[in-house]
């Protein structure tokens, strides 16, 4: 054991000669516990995903609940996503004009805006906005149902809660994210062009023609449809956090917070992999 390990610390923070403490052992124990919890969490997430997959792929299908969730995730997120997309369009427009002017490449403005919004900012902003709104909502709703035994009541009524509650929500997220991304992209391009047009005359026709010149589907479809993976991450983590909640109101709050934080984190990490994947598969 190192010298550090035999240094005792008293309550007031001073070393107490003659007493032995084991800070190294304590740190080691907490690190082991953390690693154990980390792998346990992923293991449980994997089991949860398998149960949801199995329940979701076998009949009876919960069409009515799926439609309700499509509305909840899609229609009700649309205003927020559109607003975020519009704001991003203006920001990129302002930044791009300034940077491109410095390098004498103002003619590149439409293409820069189009590619920045559709390939980069639109998908990730949509993912993060939906993660905040829908992830927290699903996490809190399911957690509240869990602590008040409503999920047990569903199961006791011979209804599979993985099918009714989780599969429908996850599928709704997967299906709605690309559509919301398209909406965010459209708003971003529109406000980006408008911000530019206020400073220098640029017709919308010119903007579109120049921005999409030489563009292929490969340039725009993969970044849009990669958001289905974001949808899977948001739905899966929010349902998982919600349905494993314990501990009353505090647990509900924790589930909602964890849903947003973890979904956003994994979404950004997944983006790293997805961008590389798209660059390799759709060059």
């Amino acid at each position, binding site marked *: 054991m190192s010298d550090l390990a035999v240094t005792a610390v008293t309550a007031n923070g001073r070393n107490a000669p003659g007493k032995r403490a084991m800070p190294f052992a304590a740190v080691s124990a907490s690190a082991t516990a953390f690693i154990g919890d980390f792998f346990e969490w992923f293991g449980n997430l994997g089991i949860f995903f398998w149960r949801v997959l199995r*329940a979701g792929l076998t009949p*009876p299908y919960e069409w009515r609940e799926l439609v309700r969730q499509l509305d909840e995730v899609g229609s009700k997120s649309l205003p927020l996503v559109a607003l975020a997309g519009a704001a991003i369009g203006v920001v990129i427009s302002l930044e791009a004009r300034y940077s491109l002017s410095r390098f004498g490449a103002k003619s590149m403005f439409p293409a820069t805006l189009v590619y920045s919004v559709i390939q980069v900012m639109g998908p990730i902003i949509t993912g993060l906005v939906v993660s905040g709104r829908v992830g927290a909502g699903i996490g809190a709703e399911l957690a509240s149902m869990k602590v008040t*035994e*409503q999920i047990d*009541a569903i*199961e*006791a*009524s*011979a209804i599979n809660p993985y099918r009714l509650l989780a599969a429908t929500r996850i599928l709704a997220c997967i299906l709605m994210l690309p559509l919301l991304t398209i909406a965010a992209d459209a708003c971003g391009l529109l406000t980006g062009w408008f911000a530019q047009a206020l400073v220098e005359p640029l017709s919308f026709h010119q903007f579109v023609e120049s921005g999409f010149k030489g563009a292929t589907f490969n340039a725009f479809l993969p970044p849009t449809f990669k958001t289905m993976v974001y949808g899977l991450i948001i739905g899966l983590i929010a349902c998982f956090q919600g349905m494993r909640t314990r501990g009353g109101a505090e647990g509900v709050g924790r589930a909602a917070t964890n849903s947003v934080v973890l979904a956003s984190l994994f979404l950004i990490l997944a983006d790293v992999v997805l961008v590389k994947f798209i660059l390799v598969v759709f060059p």
Partner: protein
Amino acid sequence: MATAQSTSMLPDELVDSGRASVVAVEAVHKSFGAHKVLNGINLTVNRGETLAVLGRSGTGKSVLLRLIVGLDKPDSGSIRIGGEDIAGLTIDQLGGIRKKMGFLFQHAALYDSLSVADNVAFPLQHHSKELSKSERSDRVSQLLLEVGLDGNLDRMPSDISGGMQKRVGLARALALKPEILLLDEPTAGLDPISSREIDELILKLQKERQMASIVVTHDLFSAKTISNRLALLDQGNVVIEGSFEDLERSDIAFVKEFLKQ
């Protein structure tokens, strides 16, 4: 005693032989971490019989009900429902058995985003798809009338009293015409008048439907009123099982102490 119906979950030979144990709990152990809750418990409930399970708080009464309905799995031992061991069944396989069971949760566990009528209709929507909307609506009204809640169809669970919530929970538990009824503290938290009303309601339903029922309760008067047989639990096992008079005659110190309440 009810006659065997074509939809019965019991095998015919079992019904014919008179050994109509609808629920059989055999040597069941259940622990949560280091805390041992049930310690080799044995219990049976027959068709048309009401068993009251009594005991101090934390002796595993509610856990026993959760094990019977399959919400938790026993560490060892077997739970047979209609002769079938439910231990190894998946959630979808359990569905067929759960359709024959009604469960009233301690706090009713009503779906707080659904109205009273929709709460009762919920199992029917999923399992009685052959019913038209109007037939389902009639069935919901009839169930609510049965539990004395006519005219409260559109109210939300948060807008009704605890006693009314229990009644709605009971109506929901009865929706699929169960052969087994599990009641977790049906009178807990209710005033004496509401408690008696719930007891009378349970008795009336038992008389009409002849279900096998297990009632977990702290309420001795309620247990005496609604049950044919009582089982007193302590430290995860059954201390005594029999009629209320059997309990009164018992020399076991714990039983005497419990009956003093």
